[in-house]
């Protein structure tokens, strides 16, 4: 009986020690997250496929989860990923889509994060070309390719064929059909950006991602509102306003809207609206 009590007490002490060790162990592991994550990305695809045996799908899922964890770790550390971090993320996404070329989430993640935050449109386009083969009946890869060409590179002629292809695929939104021809009429990429983000929000489950997209959509809507006011000002006065207060003074807008990312909206030469946040979260940099 006494031995049993001693064992129970011993077990209780060990459990308490174990609980107190969980966080230090987590911190040690945190130091090596980056190293282990980077190593995955440099593995040759054929070797990775051989290691995975018949579990390529589930390994692709777990690697993608690791990517989300890596991003979460960076946010947790209140640091922005460095260029080499973005490259590691791209490398791992490339491996994930080699393991499962039909896996939609990595493509959407690349489109949402690598283009907007890291400016890696060329690399994202490479992934999306893989998606057009892996998901031949999905309109989204073509839509994203068209969006990247128009929004990030301002190449309507390059975007149009992709949007036309996207528009004839199953479940494509109706507005895509006429979008290719109407692009040049918009005068800026903001409308396409708004449509793009609305489409992403409608199909995203993860609440955190949804919130991030909504913030970006909100910022783009503010920019669109300002662009419309600037155009109206130009039409009526013949010149672009020098600053945003001119729009308030002449009652084109009630007040200067605030940038949800914490930046300030300014008018560039030619009436283009710019924000000092560059539509990026204003975290503490390394």
């Amino acid at each position, binding site marked *: 009986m006494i031995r049993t009590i001693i064992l129970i007490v011993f077990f209780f002490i060990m459990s308490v020690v174990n609980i107190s060790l969980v966080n230090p162990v987590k911190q040690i592991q945190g130091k090596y997250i980056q190293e282990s994550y980077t190593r995955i990305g440099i593995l040759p695809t*054929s070797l990775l*496929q*051989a290691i995975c*045996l*018949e*579990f*390529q*799908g*589930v390994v*692709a*899922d777990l690697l*993608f*989860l690791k990517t*989300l964890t890596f991003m979460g770790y960076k946010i947790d550390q209140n640091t922005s990923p460095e260029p080499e971090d973005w490259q590691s993320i791209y490398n791992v996404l490339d491996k994930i889509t080699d393991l*499962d070329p*039909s*896996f*939609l*989430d990595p493509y*959407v*993640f690349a489109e949402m994060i690598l283009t907007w935050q890291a400016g890696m449109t060329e690399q994202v386009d490479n992934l999306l070309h893989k998606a057009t083969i892996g998901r031949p009946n999905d309109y989204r890869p073509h839509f994203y390719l068209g969006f990247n060409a128009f929004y990030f590179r301002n190449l309507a002629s390059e975007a149009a064929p992709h949007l036309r292809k996207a528009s004839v695929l199953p479940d494509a939104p109706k507005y895509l059909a006429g979008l290719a021809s109407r692009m040049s009429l918009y005068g800026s990429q903001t409308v396409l950006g708004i449509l793009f983000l609305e489409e992403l929000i409608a*199909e*995203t*489950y*993860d609440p955190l*991602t949804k919130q991030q997209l909504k913030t970006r959509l909100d910022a783009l809507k503010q920019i669109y509102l300002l662009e419309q006011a600037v155009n109206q000002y130009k039409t009526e006065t013949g010149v672009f306003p020098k600053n945003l207060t001119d729009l308030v003074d002449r009652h084109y807008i009630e007040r200067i809207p605030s940038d949800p990312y914490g930046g300030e909206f300014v008018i560039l030469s030619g009436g283009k609206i710019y924000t000092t946040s560059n539509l990026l979260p204003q975290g503490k940099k390394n």
Partner: protein
Amino acid sequence: MKNVIPVSFLTYREGLKHKVVLLTTICALSLMTGSVLISGFFMRDISKIILDFCLSITNIGGLLIPFFLAITLLAGDIEKRTIVTILARNISRTEYLFGKYLGISMLTATVMLIFLAATLLAILGGNFLYSNIYFKGFSISAVVQSVILSYLGISILNAAVVLWCSITTTSFLATLLTIATYLTGQSIDNIVRFVESPPAGIEISTSISKTVQIIQYIFPNLAAFDHKLSAAHGALIPFSEFAMLSCYAFVYIIATLTLSTILFIRRDL
């Protein structure tokens, strides 16, 4: 062959007595529940994530039978000498081996059917928790087809267990040979393709090339039975391919069991 069925039912009942079946089922069901929760961490391919996890677990659950239970049931009989009692009851060695194989296959089918049911429950759970827009690509036919093909692959491995148990004297050696068969079967296709068309700058010696070519006719191509990825995306493989794979599995199993019988009837127990 009239004694094959009684031996198979005896093996089946004996297998069910092991807590392994019950415990692995409980573990798999828990993991499947976990898969529904994990899928919520992802952005939109929720159905694919649940199916990836569930079909992999189903496969692992099925693989536990040849790796552990089948060897216990077969090699255990020989090690504990209970085989002598069975064979003394006017049961031929051929009937014994085929009966054992059928019993093990029935156990595998039972375990995988439970896992299949759990997979469908996980999909229902996911549909309930999240929204049905994330389950548009789900195809029950593709899932069932994938599980059948996985079952056929594991059945081949079960036949390999019978072969290794009929020629080895210890269960440890039989386990090692079964694991080796599984790993070879999963990678032989990649290796053959690599040898047939090596990347530029890599030279493959003729002897290695010939050895690999021969091995592909000896070991089963287990990777061919893996269609979990396409099932997770709701894609069925054509019926002709399904029929060809079934035919390959059937022929390989019969050939392996025949070889096992030839070796087993000559064995000194």
